[in-house]
């Protein structure tokens, strides 16, 4: 959360023409990494224990069909999803799986759970080149 004082100081600097590009310390980077890692960890929990977290209604877990989030192809999204007949993002496909194989309700796209699931999927796919639109 950006503190009010930071905003005010930034605005003052802007007004004075002294605003520099953002800068941050190693500690900042470490903290942000920690925040991301926590999202990945929560995503993994949702993935593995989907029923415990009530993602679905039938005991099925994401990890049953997608060990290590494989076969999710996050690097290829957004892409034309032939079954839906339009270009979609990965979050829509996550919800498709929650609604269908898991027989659950769609997550809000900005929910903590959706962000965690996307974080986990991308983390398992780290190092792979982006290939939006690829089939």
């Amino acid at each position: 959360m950006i503190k009010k004082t930071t905003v005010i100081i930034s605005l003052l600097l802007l007004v004075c023409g002294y605003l520099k590009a953002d800068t941050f310390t190693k500690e900042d980077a470490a903290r942000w990494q920690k925040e991301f890692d926590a999202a990945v960890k929560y995503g993994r929990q949702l993935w593995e224990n989907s029923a415990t977290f009530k993602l679905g209604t039938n005991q099925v877990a994401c990890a049953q069909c997608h060990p290590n989030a494989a076969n999710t192809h996050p690097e290829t999204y957004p892409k034309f999803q032939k079954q839906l007949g339009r270009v979609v993002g990965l979050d829509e496909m996550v919800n498709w799986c929650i609604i269908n194989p898991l027989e659950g309700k769609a997550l809000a796209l900005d929910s903590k759970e959706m962000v965690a699931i996307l974080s986990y999927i991308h983390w398992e796919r780290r190092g792979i080149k982006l290939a939006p639109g690829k089939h």
Partner: protein
Amino acid sequence: MSRDISRRKFLERSAIGAAMAVLPLTLVKVAFGEKEAAGKKTGVEKSAKPDFTFAYISDAHIQQIEGNKFVRNWDQGLKRAVAEANLLVPKPDFVMFGGDLGQLGKKAELDHGAEIMSACKYKTRYVMGEHDYYLDMGAYWEKLFGRQYYSFDHKGVHFVVLNSVLTYDKWINKWPSAEERMNQMAGLDNPNGSPFMVGEAQMKWLRQDLAKLDKNTPVIVFSHSPLQKIYKGWNFWTEEAEQIQALLKPFNKVNVIYGHVHQIQYNQIGTISFNAVMATAWPWPYPQSYAQAKSSLPVLTVPMNRADPFFERDATGWQFIDVYSGKVAANYILPDNQNRTVRYNEKTGQPEDMKYQDKRTIAQDHY
């Protein structure tokens, strides 16, 4: 189950018959002495033994929700395979179930699975899977289906059924409860899992079982896990793979058929041909799809088409196996996916896909 077919069953079967072209199943034909091939070879037994087929259904993962509610999707996969296997012409000599009948080894799951399997019109034998085993170390499964490892002979072929999903005692005993142990083993990608193995007692039994056989006897081994090392992280793996292969090596015609991997795989190592079978429940990614670890899918394998999740049964299936000349042709019946036949090629001495071996398609590219 009564042999009378109720009207409802009949209607179900008719509907299934109409849908036959889109079903997942693997049929295996064991053929003996194709006449020409036998004639050309000298010193090889003549084709007195008949070809035959058997059906192979595997990895149903029947999963209890609560009480008498089970995951519909997995139920449907197994029901469909059984119904289709019953429609096979020519009739298979028997049916093998390749392991993982249940998801968490519960009595309710094994009972429900056994009930669905009881509609099979043929003699049915079972292989132990880890999902059947780790709740009570196979006790209830044994009560339903018999011994955990055994062998039998059929039309001149020696069949061996292994329990290849054992593991180290230290791992077995480290969990606070049987349920926790089962949950830990049920996660395919669980970093706290443990590698599959056959164990010393079973290795000794296998050695003795094979010792009495003539080396020209065709041998078909059924195991749940691959008796070759493909990817340890998902237990596409058996610890003693090399030792088992060494025991099988002296035989001229050996086939290993395994489940667990939920996908088409095949390989040839020396005289041993390997075929994996499909799951009726859901398909798994090929191990190369996991970017963070190295794996060794046999280069011979032409992967199946990528699954379309919008078709519930896509990339699931069963197989009928055709046994000829003591070698195997696996016919993969895959609803909503390309049916495939992987057949031993006498010329090249390895199993090959009848259609795609040299011309893979873009849909078979897994990443």
